């Protein structure tokens, strides 16, 4: 479980996060949504320790990350898997080398053991027979799968994804969403996803947090989002005609 209390973060004069509190449970897929510039990326980067909070605490199963010793921090880092918006695969390494990299750095497994684990996770993300390809030879969806494979290869307790669907076609986006949710359920991972893809919200949003101007403006599930009368959420989620119609249909059905 990840518990965020009163998180503040800014850059110089610009205050990006203004007192966010939230709880993310193990085995649950939580989505952070909000307009561009609402603080989603800064929030997720604060969770993974790339930004240090100015105020507030982030605790991982009761351990506050800013109070870690170097050794504890190192240990905690290995409990984290992160899927970056642009996949962030190492260009000069093949798919196999990318996924094997954390194992080489942090385990004492033999080459055969590492290869077995790499093949297992690549199979898990439905990406077999691409071991020797370079990231540049893969499609966007395949790169995302490699990034997910690399993020889960160390069996993380916490998985973070920054806009995992950006740049993907709707069909591939749903495949990636479902994959993340399956992995979350399967390994009981605490998963936090940044997105502004409404399909993701409807598909996998067990818990949704809506950020506006650096503050938590709303929290609920994908079902609650149909019923909410929070003006900011309604304006953001139902800005497209398609989702407006879906919502109307849902509410009519409930009447």
């Amino acid at each position, binding site marked *: 479980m990840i518990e965020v209390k009163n998180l503040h973060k800014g850059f110089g004069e610009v205050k990006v996060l203004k007192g966010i509190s939230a709880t993310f449970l193990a085995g649950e897929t939580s989505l952070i949504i909000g307009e561009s510039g609402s603080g989603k990326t800064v929030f997720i980067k604060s969770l993974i320790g790339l930004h240090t909070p100015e105020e507030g605490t982030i605790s991982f199963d009761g351990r506050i990350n800013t109070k870690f010793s170097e050794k504890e921090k190192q240990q905690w880092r290995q409990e984290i898997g992160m899927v970056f918006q642009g996949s962030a695969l190492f*260009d000069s390494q093949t798919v196999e080398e990318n996924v094997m990299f954390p194992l080489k750095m942090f385990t004492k497994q033999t080459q055969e053991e590492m290869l077995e684990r790499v093949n297992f996770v690549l199979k898990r993300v439905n990406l077999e027979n691409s071991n020797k390809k370079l990231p540049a030879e893969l499609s966007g969806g395949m790169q995302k799968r490699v990034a997910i494979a690399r993020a889960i290869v160390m069996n993380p307790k916490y998985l973070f994804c920054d806009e995992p669907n950006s740049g993907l076609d709707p069909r591939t986006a749903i495949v990636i969403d479902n994959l993340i949710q399956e992995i979350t359920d399967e390994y009981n991972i605490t998963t936090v996803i940044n997105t502004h893809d409404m399909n993701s919200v409807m598909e996998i949003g067990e818990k949704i947090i809506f950020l506006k101007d650096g503050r938590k403006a709303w929290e609920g599930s994908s079902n609650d989002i149909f019923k909410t009368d929070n003006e900011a959420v309604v304006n953001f989620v139902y800005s497209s005609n398609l989702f407006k119609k879906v919502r109307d249909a849902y509410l009519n059905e409930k009447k």
Partner: protein
Amino acid sequence: MNYLEHTGKYFMMLGRVFKKPQRTKVFYEAFLKEIEDLGLKSLGIIMFISFFIGGVIALQTALNLENPFIPKSLIGFAAKRSIILEFAPTFCSIILAGKVGSYITSSIGTMRVTEQIDALEVMGINALNHLVLPKVLATVFFYPFLISLGMFLGILGGWVSGVLSGLFSGADYIEGIQTDFDPFLLSYAIIKTLVFAFIIATVPSYHGYFVKGGSIAVGRASTQAVVWTTILIVIANYFLTQMLLT
């Protein structure tokens, strides 16, 4: 940001670079790869330029020595000293600053803007140590060989140019090379090369690591890195010459 701030940030970066590698085997693999990327792949250009510049130095010296009382062996002597003292260590290092420096900045800068460095840090890896230390050790280890090869080929180029042009004989040239040979000249050249190699690896790494923005920022950082590396090599050359030869 002012120069003082950059200097402080550069030395703080070095503090993080010179840490014990987290995994020796991974470091060793990276070191060998850097030897190939930063050293072996520069062999061709250094060999080509050294040979022809050596030839030009010998020809220019020959053409400017018209007095019949000056022995022809002086051409070999002058070419040897110019090549060992300045051309090979300094001129070749400036060429390497352009070729290797821009490569280092653009590769690390691209890793920065595509979040690959963030990915390393999230994994708990000291990205500076992982990316920069192999480059520093590879250049410091390999460039003395590269520059020594440059010296040899420069002197050889001088001999070939003399023989082909007929301006001086090969025997006179070799006599000049053997005259008054001081082994300290080689030590001086190697010491300079080690310092320049360190600058070539670290200054472009600094520019790449701290780049902010996108591809244009990476391009701009590469240009700045080459300019600053060249400036620092020239300044270091002046002080090293004063310290070692006066």
